[in-house]
């Protein structure tokens, strides 16, 4: 399925995080049905990947202030419900598919546009997050 390069930003308010806290922003693209969120998937290298992207950053505003975090990915055109998660950054959630192959922290040349996430990583990031919100009816393309 043809995909489009996509970029955007998330505006969020820091309620409790300390300055310089390392966090990751995740966007998971899917469909919200009732209270259940169903991620969209694709196949690459014989594996199923969830359509998602991540971006790592540090908190650079004090508590009570807002910060903007940008992201980039690829998506087929369509309308999505988007789960946005901000949580502590850990390397064990770096199992993502990018347009240059698997993401590798040791090789920054392979760290580019994230476009997929292993299902087990989604399970991990859905616990212990700092903030989460689902936006519905987000149009792409």
């Amino acid at each position: 399925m043809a995909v489009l390069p996509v970029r955007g930003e998330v505006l969020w308010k820091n309620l409790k995080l300390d300055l310089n806290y390392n966090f990751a922003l995740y966007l998971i693209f899917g469909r919200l049905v009732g209270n259940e969120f169903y991620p969209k998937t694709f196949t690459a290298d014989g594996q199923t990947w969830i359509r998602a992207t991540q971006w790592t950053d540090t908190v650079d505003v004090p508590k009570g202030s807002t910060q903007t975090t940008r992201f980039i990915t690829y998506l087929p055109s369509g309308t999505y419900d988007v789960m946005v998660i901000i949580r502590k950054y850990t390397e064990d959630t770096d199992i993502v598919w990018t347009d240059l192959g698997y993401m590798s922290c040791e090789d920054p040349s392979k760290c580019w546009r994230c476009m997929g996430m292993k299902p087990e990583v989604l399970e991990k990031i859905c616990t212990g997050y700092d903030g989460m919100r689902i936006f519905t009816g987000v149009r792409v393309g």
Partner: protein
Amino acid sequence: MIEILEFSGINELRPVAVSAEGFDPLTCGVGWRNNKLSAGLLVGVAVLFGTLEGETFTPLGFEHEGYTYAWGVVTPTETAPSAGSTKTTTLLTYALNPSSPISVDALVTVGKFSYCSARSFDYGYGERMVGIRIDTLETMFSEIYVQAGFQDVIALSPMRPAVEIQSLNISIG
């Protein structure tokens, strides 16, 4: 109110609507006096959170990866001050996230720690302990030097998230 309890006073874990997902840092300070232990003796200090009714303490707990944990924290590496002296032991843990406001009691234990039996759960990737496996609670200490219950040590409300996501915009490019 402070009561000295027997360790056998620990009840079965009470299933409650608390979750290990979402928490706030919590610091516990335990002040204790050494009456007759040898100075420098290695001791364990534990704080369990739950409800205290009479002489029965019921831990609050949660499930994680197939195991049941009592909410609490233990340090096995505290040393006794000189006999007759007091000491404050600081323990770091997390406040669990209840679904409705609750008042929490605590059971504090100082004893000889049994390294082989305690199994703890450290939510923060090695940063601090949040729970102790329920099936190891009664063998965690091979000898209890003192145990005390404290009522209403903390009031918890459903957690406010650390960040509030306000808006999302997305475009081709």
